[in-house]
């Protein structure tokens, strides 16, 4: 069943339809939350909270709006709230450097290790830059969608992505030996 059909049924109260949507979007929400909160347990809580809030609000979801964008808007707000209110371990900068250096020395890089190394690099970005990078390069959203989700203007978002890429470039080059 298409997203649109699932959403239409979920809007009318069909719990199974909503559960199917939740299954479908769980991974991408989890990915975003993990990068934004840098902590798997916190991310899981936030993702759960996001889907429950969306479920409570879905009766008023407007047809014609894209569900994914709406859902991510809720998620990003939840991540921002959680980031300011929860205690979490901070990755110290020197830990990042050491981890990247270790990753760069290994050969050939296994998928899991590549992902860890890239995660560490992305996690070291400032929150707004990280958010923009993840929405664009991990979730593949376009700038208009990103603007809706984050509330920022398109040119501001492009600037954030550029700054994120500038900060990541040397670290990614080290990881990929380029």
């Amino acid at each position: 069943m298409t997203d649109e059909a699932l959403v239409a049924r979920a809007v009318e109260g069909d719990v199974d339809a909503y559960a199917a949507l939740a299954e479908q979007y769980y991974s991408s929400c989890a990915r975003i939350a993990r990068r934004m909160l840098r902590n798997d347990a916190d991310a899981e809580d936030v993702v759960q909270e996001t889907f429950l809030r969306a479920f409570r609000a879905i009766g008023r979801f407007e047809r014609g709006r894209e569900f994914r964008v709406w859902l991510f808007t809720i998620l990003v707000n939840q991540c921002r709230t959680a980031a300011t209110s929860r205690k979490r371990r901070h990755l110290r900068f020197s830990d990042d450097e050491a981890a990247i250096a270790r990753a760069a020395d290994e050969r050939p890089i296994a998928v899991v290790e590549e992902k860890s190394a890239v995660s560490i690099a992305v996690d070291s970005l400032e929150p707004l830059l990280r958010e923009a990078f993840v929405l664009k390069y991990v979730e593949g959203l376009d700038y208009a969608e990103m603007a809706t989700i984050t509330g920022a203007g398109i040119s501001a978002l492009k600037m954030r992505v550029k700054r994120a890429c500038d900060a990541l470039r040397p670290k990614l080059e080290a990881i990929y030996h380029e």
Partner: protein
Amino acid sequence: MSDVDDEELFERAGAALRSPSANDAAAREALVHAIRDEPRRSPVTTSRKASPWWMAFAAAAVAFVAGLGTGRSMSRPPSVAKAGSGDSAERRVEFVFVAPAARNVSLVGDFNGWDATATPMRRTDGRTTWSVAVPLAAGRHVYAFVVDGNDWVTDPQAPLSPEQWFGQRNSVVVVPVGDRGS
């Protein structure tokens, strides 16, 4: 490094971060349980208790979609017809309200003296939706729906009125001048 290589570098990083995590399965299952445990918006059985009658719309709405599935919105804000030819000061405005469990619904507002008998609404769309079209002068109007003769309710699709003269808000509709419909 060229721009293309640059872009590829970041796309590659993005792809790496998209590879699935092992942990998700348990969390997904927990989420689905939590969703099913949420209080239902639409009661499966009709209740003797005074639960808000509008909560029943969801259950009937599924039947509506299954039966008709016309792709038009079930509930929508008041829609203003385009101005006809000539300089009429009035425009025809259609009000739509979803209330499958109601026995009768009428429209009240500053245009009919808030008289609940003046503008009864008609069931449409497989009996879940009520509608009526009235001519309204251009400008701002306040209105509400009266359900089963007693319950005055606001339109969930419309702006709320700031005034609560008698303890309850109403809804607002602005009828534009000129040729624009809404």
